[in-house]
């Protein structure tokens, strides 16, 4: 019995690792595990089922992520895997791993800041420039190159940059 359980948990870990290797096609330095998009891996009989959650309702990357999870699992020897989308609990940037935040920053995207309130209709949030570190920055647009990012500009070094919105 013990050996069976150990075998199962090892198998699950292998499936998890395979799914967790898939990267976000729009921010390829982050894996779906870093993002908190990968929620669960379970076995249904012989088949593995992976649960993912969308960052934003209309995120166009979800279909591609699902496809790549299937490919990754097939390659790891899990046949005919299934990918299920779960909505609840709703994804939040709080689920982004510390490692993910560091990778984002190194990539030139400011990671989400927990302190900023998306509920405040107006008002400032301080986002430091990922290039020069200056906090003299300004918001250009709430909506950037992807659903999850806003477009900012540094007034010190004049470089535009992406900020991963707190969600």
């Amino acid at each position, binding site marked *: 019995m013990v050996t069976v359980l150990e075998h199962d948990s090892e198998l699950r870990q292998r499936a998890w690792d395979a799914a967790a290797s898939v990267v976000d096609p729009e921010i390829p330095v982050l894996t779906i595990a870093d993002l908190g998009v990968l929620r669960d891996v379970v076995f249904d009989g012989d088949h593995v089922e992976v649960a993912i959650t969308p960052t934003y*309702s209309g995120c166009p990357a979800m279909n591609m992520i699902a496809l790549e999870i299937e490919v990754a699992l097939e390659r790891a020897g899990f046949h005919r895997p299934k990918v299920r989308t779960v909505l609840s609990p709703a994804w939040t940037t709080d689920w982004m791993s510390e490692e993910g935040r560091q990778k984002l920053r190194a990539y030139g995207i400011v990671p989400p800041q927990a302190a900023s309130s998306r509920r405040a209709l107006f008002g400032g949030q301080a986002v430091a420039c990922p290039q020069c570190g200056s906090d003299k920055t300004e918001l250009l647009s709430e909506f950037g190159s992807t659903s999850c990012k806003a477009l900012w500009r540094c007034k010190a070094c004049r470089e535009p940059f992406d900020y991963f919105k707190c969600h």
Partner: protein
Amino acid sequence: MPVANIQVSETPMVLYTLRRADDALILGHRLSEWCGHAPMLEEDMALSNIALDLIGQARELYTYAAAVEGKDNDEDKLAYLRDVRQYRNLLLVEQPNGDFAQTLVRQFFYSAFADLYWRAMMTSRDATLAAIAAKSEKESAYHLRHASEWIIRLGDGTDESHVRAQTAIDHLWAFTGEMFAVDDGECALIHAGIAIDPGTLRGRWLTTLSDVISEATLELPQNDWMQQGGRAGRHSEHLGHLLSELQSMQRTFPGLTW
């Protein structure tokens, strides 16, 4: 050969979900019409992003409506194979984009409502609607902030932008009453704790409007005559034209997939 419209068994629950799905799809489609045409690149991306959020919400809602109905329908059939009279969206969201001010005033009226609505729906006894609400309320907070900033910029901008914003407010005002109306089927869902009573949101909705509109040096209309009909399938002429574009591929090549 023309493709037949699907039939939908409109139980109160199916109808309730479809109405919200139609709001999101039609408004999302309207915003997508700005893609490549907005006055500046940042705004082009913003409107397209908001359109994406709304169409994403519509997909979740259509999928759920189809599951509740339990027939052969799915999100695609519900979006592509219903005719004008089968659409149940608010008249507000199908109104043409007009100029930039009209698009943003329409967005402001809707987002100020949607933000309150989805937050309230997070406590729905229906687990799926509550889950969709929890995702949507995060997005609607951004949509409202974006629209509010524009209302202020346009109203408190040049003489030209001020006039255009005020004209849009006066023009679209009569379409806002429908957001707070309920029919018998919805009343039953409200009593069951599945839906929320939109009438309870009206006070806070008006407060948001007043705050932003007065900061924008604009005025709320005093006129309280309201047009209704969208929820019952009676639409303005504009929706038919919108659907003819939205549905053209599926009507021309039935079952077409990417």
